[in-house]
């Protein structure tokens, strides 16, 4: 499904601020995998996701999605394969446009945009049902500007946008980190439901170890631009935060240094 081979990325090379974000990363995902990703600050989690999405070209390495080498395909074209939700709720939606308009833009991801009506009435009606499934009371607010919604509502709409046109790969970059715990839980529940219903191959970065353990069928832990722990199947079901911390220390020779992740 997704195959990353020997991916390297250094930011600000040749300066004092040089930062090796990815250092020979290898990762292979199978169809239907739901992978959670954890790691300390600067471990390269977001860099990996952005490299997959094509936000920047990697220094070295190869990214394949479903057998297609996408390494050199620009971000907007690569979007045809991907659904993305970001940490910042403001990033995933156009604030001055209606909820329905946002969804209609997402529904045309990966197709050529034409000079035909952008939001036919029938399509608008179909969005009502999708929004009702979110159970956030948005089904009667199709014409509301997205900017009027709360952070949690915006993330839920972004999630809907990311999956309205079935992506080959769903990328979630700490998409609940900016939300209060109750809302975060709600968005996670919605995430799990949508992923299950559509059997989506998913990569979810989280800062919360418990969430990383609870969700998905596979867990990877990153450190200094590499994957140092990769647990799946039965082994993953038995994981606890303590076991995970132990695995980290053994693999990296360091104490896990992200309090937020342990306490969260």
């Amino acid at each position, binding site marked *: 499904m997704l195959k990353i081979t020997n991916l390297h990325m250094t930011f600000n090379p040749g300066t004092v601020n040089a930062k090796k974000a990815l250092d020979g990363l290898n990762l292979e995902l199978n169809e239907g995998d739901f992978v959670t990703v954890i790691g300390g600050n600067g471990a390269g989690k977001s860099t990996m996701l952005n490299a997959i999405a094509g936000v920047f070209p990697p220094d070295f390495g190869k990214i394949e999605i479903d057998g297609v080498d996408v390494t050199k395909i620009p971000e907007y074209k690569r979007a045809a394969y991907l659904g993305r939700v970001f940490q910042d709720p403001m990033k*995933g939606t156009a604030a001055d446009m209606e909820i329905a308009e946002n969804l209609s833009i997402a529904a*045309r991801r990966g197709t050529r945009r034409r*000079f035909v*009506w952008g939001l036919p009435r029938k399509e608008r009606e179909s969005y009502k049902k999708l929004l009702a499934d979110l159970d956030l009371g948005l089904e009667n607010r199709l014409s509301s500007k997205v900017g009027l919604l709360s952070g949690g509502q915006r993330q839920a709409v972004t999630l809907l946008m990311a999956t309205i046109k079935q992506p080959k790969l769903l990328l979630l970059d700490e998409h609940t980190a900016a939300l209060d715990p109750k809302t975060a839980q709600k968005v996670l529940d919605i995430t799990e439901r949508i992923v299950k219903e559509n059997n989506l191959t998913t990569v979810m970065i989280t800062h919360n170890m418990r969430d990383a353990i609870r969700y998905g069928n596979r867990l990877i832990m990153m450190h200094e631009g590499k994957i140092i722990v990769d647990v799946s199947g039965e082994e993953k079901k038995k994981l606890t935060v303590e076991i995970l911390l132990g695995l980290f220390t053994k693999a990296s020779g360091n104490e896990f240094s992200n309090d937020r992740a342990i306490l969260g």
Partner: protein
Amino acid sequence: MGFLNALPGAVAQGLIWGLFAIGLYISYKILDIADLTVDGSICTGACVLAVLLTKGVNIYLCLIAAFVAGAIAGAVTGLFHTAMGIPPILSGILTQLILWSLNLKILGKANLAISSRKYPVLLSSMDNWKAIVVSMIFCILVIVGLYLFFYTEVGFSIKSTGDNEHMSRAQGVNVNFNKVLGLAISNGIIALSGALLAQYQGFADINMGRGAIVIGLAAIIIGLSVSMKIMPNFVVSLIGVVSGGIAYYLVYTFVIFLGLDTDLLKMLSAIVVAIFLAVPYLKKKYFTKQRIFEDANAKTEEVDENA
């Protein structure tokens, strides 16, 4: 008496500048780019029309040529920005400078008369009522056209490009292409307004675009301050923007009637625009503080109740 006589002329010019402001609205409000090309492209529209008209070309073909010339200018600015990575403001200034030379070359001299007695112009200051009708028809056609355009799939993606580039790219929108297209349409409309203006005043002049962006911004600000309160949708906004142009010219005519030194008009326009642009910022700065303070109070009260 003098002022009343000048009213039809003010409305006619207001409508022409309203059309200009609609073009500016696309770059300034929809794409969120302060595009300085407009000072040049309004003049390009006037020059192209004037030269072709004096060569005996059909007036409607002249208008189409003016639109196309403006659109090309806008596309050049867009390419400076997207393909060459030059900041949008600088891209606009560069194109504006290029246009200054080109406009001189097109015109062949600093100005060119297109008298309504000699050429089949659609409107002129000789007949202000007719000028009002003609320029209003142009405004309506452009508003309807833009309404239809911005509700297509392509139109939606241009709006989202200006609203949230990050989201647009993630949803597979080619933001660079959209910026070039948006700037082309914007400057095409602006060149069209220049073509109308040249006919109205009876000549094209190399200096006619100077400071145009400030008049356009004033029209947008005046117009939106009213239309956003009535009904914040696309068509009402554009109608508001045209009304803003008319309001600007009514005030303009009035202060001239009062005997204000016309040399100072550009400065005063700029100051008025600066003040209006500052209002939202200052409002936020001073009113937000207040709100945080109130929130803090509300929270303390809650805690008290719990205790």
